């Protein structure tokens, strides 16, 4: 089964085959690994490879597999060829940056107006959640193109708050 993986902005070609022995052959960008899987269930996968036993907890949602090993988290997207081609356009999209809420909360204060020039790292607005006020900042410099919320609004997670056009 041929797949494309995305992890930390990097893409790899992955090929998975199940062998008659019950082991898996996984080829990542040409490099072959023969992997044994002693344990797999709804939230854990344990792989044995090269005498390393790695015990990942996992969570999946559509194309995303989130794996945890010790204190490391890996957010890995996996697509078959068809889906990858469909979504490819999105990955390279360099349109306006949309700032989304990373949690549900309440907009306490807007610190910018539409049309404002902002610098990378500048504060955009203040949200309150879990009894704390938190400042939402922008990653890149640009112009505030549109503000979708107003002070006092309660927003869900992943709501688009502000759109910034890069300079």
């Amino acid at each position: 089964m041929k797949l494309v993986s995305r992890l930390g902005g990097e893409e790899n070609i992955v090929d998975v085959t199940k062998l008659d022995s019950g082991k898996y052959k996984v080829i990542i960008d040409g490099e072959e690994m023969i992997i044994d899987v002693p344990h797999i269930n709804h939230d854990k996968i344990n792989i044995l490879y090269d005498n390393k036993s790695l015990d990942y907890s996992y969570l999946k949602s559509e194309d995303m597999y989130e794996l945890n090993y010790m204190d490391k988290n890996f957010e890995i997207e996996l697509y078959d060829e068809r889906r990858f081609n469909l979504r490819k356009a999105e990955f390279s999209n360099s349109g306006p940056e949309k700032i989304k809420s990373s949690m549900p909360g309440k907009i306490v204060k807007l610190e910018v107006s539409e049309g404002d020039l902002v610098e990378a790292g500048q504060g955009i607005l203040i949200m309150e959640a879990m009894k704390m006020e938190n400042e939402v900042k922008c990653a890149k410099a640009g112009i505030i193109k549109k503000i979708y919320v107003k002070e006092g609004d309660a927003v869900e997670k992943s709501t688009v708050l502000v759109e910034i056009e890069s300079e």
Partner: protein
Amino acid sequence: MKKIEKILIANRGEISVRIQRTCRELGIKTVAIFSEQDKSAFHVQYAEESFALGGTALADTYLNQDKIIEITKKSGADAIHPGYGFLSENSEFARKCVENDIIYIGPDPDTIDLMGLKTESRKLMEKAGVPVVPGSIPLSSIEDVKTEAKRIGFPIIIKASAGGGGKGMRLVNVFEELEPAFDSCRREAQNSFGNPEVYMEKYITNIHHIEFQVIADHYGNVKHLYERDCSIQRRHQKIIEECPSTILTDELREEMGEIAILATKACNYKNAGTIEFILDDTGNFYFLEMNTRLQVEHPITEMITGLDLVAKQIKIAQGESIEDLVINRRGAAIECRIYAEDPENNFMPSPGKLEVYTIPAGFGVRNDTGVYSGYTIPMEYDPMISKLIVYAEDRARAIEKMQRALGEIHVLGIKTNISYLRKIILTDNFKEGKVNTQFIEEHEEELSRRPIGYGKNAIAAAAILKYEDMMGNLPCSKNGKGSAWKMNARREGVNL
């Protein structure tokens, strides 16, 4: 002396569970209370009886004094343990307990009053001979703020008079920041403590936050259980605490311990409390405030003394004497506060469903929590999900143990500060014991480095999962479109 037989815990989350555990051991029945959001919280499941507060807003639930008193009477509980936060430093509530013949596990209402308003307590301590930091009276207008700030000199720190626990504080370095900080601090003070009053203090830099645990019975016996060093703070919120402190000499420890006992006696204190000091690099220390309740970080004191502080609180409230109590300190303990927040995104809170949660174990490892795998962390409360506490024979071993234990926690579904905490304790300066309240700011660059995880094995594991998934072999994906998901959606629609 009245044996307490049933305790209502006027709190939620990990501290409610922690108090209940001791009650279960002592054969004391427990009563939990819960808001609508907390129906499926662990503290509700753990208790022998659980009563709905019937609401979602704080004022209707965990801050609803009359309702809590009513439930206490209805359940037949003879005592209330307030935990920390919420009503734990509210003299009005303590007074209502007393009036209703309910034992309040904590100091007298008058003592709470005395120590609750930070400006008042500073006066009392000065009179008793306890050194205090230069500061202001309560401030109600921006004009007063400006005048006082000029008198004291920058940097200053604005604090909620009724505050505590790191909330309701703003550091101000320059005159221009004064007004927004004042506004924001008053707003947070009102929201968190129901009282907008603030005051200011000189902000002393390069300081160490050292606090002494004290206990006092009804017969004038006061003892201290040594210090906790809470210097590692982010946004004035403690995140790592340890004892013993690396910078206290035995002489200084003894001197500060004696002053802590003096301060405790000065306010006629009873039960467990904490005297907070700030200490500068030259050994000068000042009284900061007294916390008239159990502290979040009390477990590290339990680890090094071997004493159960909640059990002591209950026994003192029952009228037992601590005269014969021998305090035998040993080893070193560290606590890390694990928060549902994203260190790579400006520490945004990250409430949501805890899909996977495995807890660390082994010798000297303690994990105090109020959550469980499958639990949805509500957005309305403090984002702390657990406290990881370790004990070892010395500090170097305790750090080694902490990094091992942090590595054993698996969390999926929400973001946490676990890897951030691990980075802190593994810095050279932390290992060498060079900690002060500026630590986080001074190590910002070092702490923001992302660990380079070798992803090849993880990609292979994910690919195998995808393969089995597409073959229809994967059992019950938790977050997929399967029946588990439908079930949740349905339940939440109906019940929450």
